[in-house]
C-alpha cells in the first residue's frame, strides 16, 4: 500500500539529474527553486554576518571601507532579488498554485522551467559580479554615484537584476493565467484560499512593475557605458529621475515580498485555530487594495531628496492609506484566533512571530510616513530596523511558517516538531535582539551605510551584533533538521494537520499528475467546524 503511494510520487518520477533539470512538473521546479534560493539566502546572510562583525567596533573591524560597502551592497542585492522577491511565489507558490486550484500543472509548464533557467542565469551573473569584486553602490544604485563615480562590477550586477526581472515576469504571467483558467469545477473566485488571492495580487505587481525596473537599469547601463546623459546632471540628466523610476518599481516590490507572506499566514492561522478565517472578503480585498495603492506611494522614499512640498504631502497621505489594509489583516488574523482551538505546532509559532514582528515593522512605518518625523529618521538605522522588521521578521518568518506547514506535503516527511518549535522561538528572540537596538540607534542619529561610527553608538551596536549571532543559529537550525528529516523524518500522511484545502486531499508527496480525479469544489475555504468534528473527539 505504502510502496504503491511512494512509486507514484512526483519525487520518484525519474531519479536522474536530467529528469530534474528538464522537468516541467511545477512541483519539481519548486524544489529546484528552493535549492537555489536557499543558497542565495545563506550567501546574503553571510554578508550580513560580516556587516554585524564589522560594526562591533566603532573603528570597523574588517579593515577596509571599500570591502564594507561592497558587503552591504551584495547583501542587499542578493537578499532582495535572489531571495525576498522570489521566495514564496516560486517555491511554495509554484508547488501549491495548481494543487490548491485542483489543476494538473501551471498554465505554461515550459515557461515555468524557463523562468527557473533565467533565474539561475541571473544568479550566475550576480555571483560573477560578487566574486569579481562586487559593487559599492548599495542595492539602490543611486545616480550619479552609480553612473560614473563607482568602481566595481556595476554592469554585471545590473545585468543580473535585469535577467532576474524577466524570471519574475514569467512567473507572474504564469500565475495570472493559471488562476484565471485552471480553477477546478466549482472553485469560484470567493472559494479560493487567500494564499491564491495573495499570489494573484503579487503577480499583477510583478507583471506591471518589473518592466519599469528593466528600463531603468537599461538607461543606467547606457549612461555608464556610452555616456548618454539621463541621470547625471553633469551631462544633462536628472538625478532625481532615477530615484522616481527606481522606487516606482522598488516600492511595489516591497508588496511583492510581503503579500505572499500574508497569504501563507492566512492559511496557517485558521488551520491551527481550527476556525474559519475571520472576514475572508476583507482579507482578500485588502490584498488587492495594497497591490493598487502600492503603486502610488513610491515618493515616500524621497521626502528629503528635493521633491516638491506638495508631492510630499500627497505621498504621505497615500502611504497612510496603504497601511490601513495591512492593519485590517492583522485584526482579522487575531479575530480568527478568538474562540478557536489553538495548537502550537512550529508553523503556528512562526505565524504568531510573524504577526508580532510585522506589526512592529508596520507601526514604525507610520513614523516614516509622518513627514516631519521622516526628516529626522530617514537614512538612519531606524529605516534599516523598520524594513528588516517587515522583510526579515515578517517575510522570512512567513516563508519559514509556510515551509514547515507544507513540508510534509512537499517531501512526504514530517520535520522534528521540537526542533521546529525551538527554531521559531530562537529566531524570534534573536531577531528582536538584533534589530530593536537599531531603532534606538536611528533615533539617536546613526546614519546607514557607515563603515565606522562615533564612539557613543558602540553599546547598541554591540547588542545588535550579539543578537545577530543568535539569529544566525536560528536560521542554520532549520537547514540542519529539515535536511535531516528528508532522510529520517517520520512518513507524513496526506493531511497531517487536518487542514482544509485541495492540496491536502491528495497524497504526501503528491503524485506527478496531482489528482487521480479532478476534484469538484462545493465548499467555501476554511470550513474548520466540520473538520473539527472529523479529526478531534
Amino acid at each position, binding site marked *: 500500500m505504502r510502496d504503491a503511494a511512494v512509486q507514484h510520487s512526483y519525487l520518484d518520477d525519474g531519479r536522474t539529474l536530467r529528469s530534474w533539470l528538464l522537468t516541467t512538473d511545477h512541483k519539481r521546479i519548486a524544489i529546484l527553486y528552493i535549492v537555489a534560493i536557499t543558497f542565495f539566502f545563506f550567501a546574503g546572510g553571510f554578508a550580513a554576518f560580516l556587516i554585524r562583525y564589522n560594526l562591533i567596533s566603532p573603528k570597523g573591524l574588517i579593515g577596509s571601507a571599500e570591502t564594507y560597502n561592497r558587503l552591504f551592497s551584495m547583501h542587499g542585492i542578493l537578499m532582495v532579488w535572489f531571495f525576498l522577491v522570489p521566495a514564496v511565489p516560486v517555491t511554495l507558490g509554484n508547488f501549491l498554485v495548481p494543487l490548491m486550484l485542483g489543476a494538473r500543472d501551471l498554465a505554461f509548464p515550459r515557461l515555468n522551467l524557463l523562468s527557473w533557467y533565467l533565474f539561475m542565469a541571473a544568479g550566475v551573473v550576480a555571483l560573477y559580479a560578487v566574486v569579481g569584486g562586487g559593487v559599492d553602490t548599495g542595492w539602490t544604485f543611486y545616480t550619479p554615484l552609480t553612473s560614473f563615480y563607482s568602481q566595481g562590477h556595476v554592469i554585471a550586477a545590473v545585468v543580473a537584476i535585469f535577467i532576474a526581472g524577466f524570471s519574475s515576469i514569467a512567473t507572474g504571467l504564469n500565475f495570472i493565467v493559471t488562476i484565471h483558467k485552471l480553477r477546478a469545477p466549482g472553485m469560484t473566485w470567493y472559494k479560493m484560499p487567500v494564499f491564491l488571492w495573495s499570489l494573484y495580487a503579487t503577480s499583477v505587481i510583478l507583471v506591471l512593475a518589473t518592466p519599469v525596473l528593466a528600463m531603468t537599469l537599461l538607461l543606467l547601463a547606457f549612461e555608464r557605458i556610452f555616456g548618454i546623459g539621463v541621470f547625471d546632471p553633469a551631462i544633462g540628466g536628472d538625478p532625481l529621475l532615477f530615484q522616481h523610476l527606481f522606487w516606482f518599481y522598488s516600492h511595489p516590490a516591497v508588496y511583492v515580498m510581503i503579500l505572499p507572506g500574508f497569504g501563507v499566514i492566512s492559511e496557517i492561522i485558521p488551520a491551527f485555530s481550527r476556525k474559519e478565517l475571520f*472576514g475572508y472578503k476583507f482579507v482578500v480585498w485588502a490584498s488587492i487594495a495594497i497591490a493598487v495603492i502600492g503603486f502610488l506611494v513610491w515618493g515616500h522614499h524621497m521626502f528629503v531628496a528635493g521633491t516638491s512640498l506638495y508631492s510630499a504631502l500627497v505621498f504621505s497621505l497615500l502611504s497612510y492609506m496603504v497601511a490601513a489594509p495591512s492593519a485590517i489583516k492583522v485584526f482579522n488574523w487575531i479575530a480568527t484566533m478568538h474562540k478557536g482551538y489553538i495548537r502550537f505546532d512550529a508553523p503556528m509559532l512562526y505565524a504568531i512571530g510573524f504577526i*508580532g514582528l510585522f506589526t512592529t515593522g508596520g507601526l514604525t512605518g507610520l513614523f516614516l510616513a509622518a513627514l*516631519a518625523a521622516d526628516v529626522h*529618521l530617514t537614512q538612519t538605522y531606524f529605516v534599516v530596523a523598520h524594513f528588516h522588521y517587515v522583510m526579515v521578521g515578517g517575510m522570512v518568518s512567513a516563508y519559514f511558517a509556510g515551509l514547515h506547514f507544507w513540508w510534509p506535503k512537499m517531501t512526504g516527511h514530517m520535520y522534528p516538531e521540537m526542533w521546529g518549535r525551538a527554531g521559531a522561538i530562537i529566531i524570534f528572540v534573536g531577531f528582536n535582539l538584533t534589530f530593536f537596538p537599531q531603532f534606538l540607534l536611528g533615533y539617536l542619529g546613526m546614519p546607514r551605510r557607515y563603515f565606522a561610527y562615533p564612539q557613543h553608538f558602540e553599546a547598541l551596536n554591540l547588542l545588535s551584533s550579539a543578537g545577530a549571532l543568535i539569529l544566525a543559529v536560528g536560521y542554520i537550525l532549520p537547514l540542519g533538521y529539515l535536511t535531516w528529516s528528508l532522510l529520517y523524518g517520520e512518513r507524513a500522511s496526506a493531511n497531517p494537520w487536518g487542514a482544509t484545502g485541495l492540496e491536502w486531499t491528495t497524497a504526501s508527496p503528491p503524485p506527478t499528475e496531482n489528482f487521480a480525479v479532478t476534484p469538484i469544489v462545493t465548499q467555501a475555504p476554511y470550513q474548520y467546524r466540520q473538520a473539527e468534528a472529523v479529526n478531534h473527539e
Partner: protein
Amino acid sequence: MNFYVPSATVDGREIDFLILALSLVSCAVLALVFGLILLYMVRYRAESGVYRGAPGRKTWRFEISWTVATLAVFFALFIWGGDLYVRLFQPPADALQIYVVGKQWMWKVEHQGGQHEINALHIPINRPIQLVMTSEDVIHDFSVPAFRIKHDVLPGRYESIWFEAKTPGTFELFCTQLCGVGHYSMTGEVVVMSQPDFENWLSGGAPAGEREDLAAAGKELFTAHGCSGCHGEGGVGGTPATTGVNAPALAGLLGRSVKLQSGATVTADEKFIRDCILTPDKTPIAGYPQIMPSFSGQISEEKVLRLIAYIKSLKSGSRT
C-alpha cells in the same frame, strides 16, 4: 559627546513631540495585539475546555469599526507630520544665508563675509539660518541629528534647509546619503555660538578690512572670466554701442521674471543663474542672440556661488 542629545532647535523639539506621540500610539497598538494574542493563546488553546459559544456573525461591523478607527488615527498623524514638514522647508525671509558645497568626501562652507570652513559650520544662536547647498559630484545629504534635520545635496541644483538653534554647543554633522567609499568619513561639526562669539569668530584671522566678502570675490571673477566684457561693468547690460554685443542686464536680476526664447517665463533664482553660466544654450533669453559660451568645467561650484553672490548684490540701475 553625549549618548542622547536633546534637540537644539525649536522645530526639533516639536519633531521629538511628534515622535513621542507616534511611539505612544505604537505601544498601545502593540500592547493590544500582543495582549490579545497571548490571551487567546492561553484561553483558547486546544486543550482548554473553556466554553466557546456560538460563532459570531455580521463580521462587517467589526471590520468597519477597526478600519474607520485606523484611518482616523492615520489621518491625524498625517496632518501633524505634514504641517510641521511644510514649516520645516519654508525659510523665513530674514534668515542668514550660508552656502554649503558637498564633494567626495568633505563639506565646504562659505559665509557671506567670505569666510571658508571645511567639515565645520559656525552659526549664531537664536537666528534663523538658511543653508543653500549644492554638490560638486554625487548626491550627499546634510544631516544634523541634534537639529532633527536633514536634506539631500544634489549636483546641479540648489537645495535649501533652515533652522534656528536655541542651545549653544558643538553638534555632529553627518552625510547620510551613500556617496562612495569615504561616505562614513564625510562628517563634521556644527558649532552654535552666541552672537558676539560668532562675530568674533567671523573676524578671526584676517582684520575686517582686508578680507573680501563673497560678493567682492565674485566681482573679481566677473572681470577675470570676461563676464563684464559683454554684460558691462557692474552688469548693467550691453549694447552694440557700449560692449559690442547685446547682452542682458544682470543688476536686479534675482527674483525677476525672465522671458526665454521658448516663450516660457521663469523666475530667476540661484539655480537659474547657475544654469545660465554653465549651460547657457539651454536657457536662451528672449530678445538676445544666444552667443554666450558655456563655463561648464571652467569654474568650480564655489566660484559659481561667488558670482551669484555678486549678481545678487547688484541693485537695479546701480553701478558698483
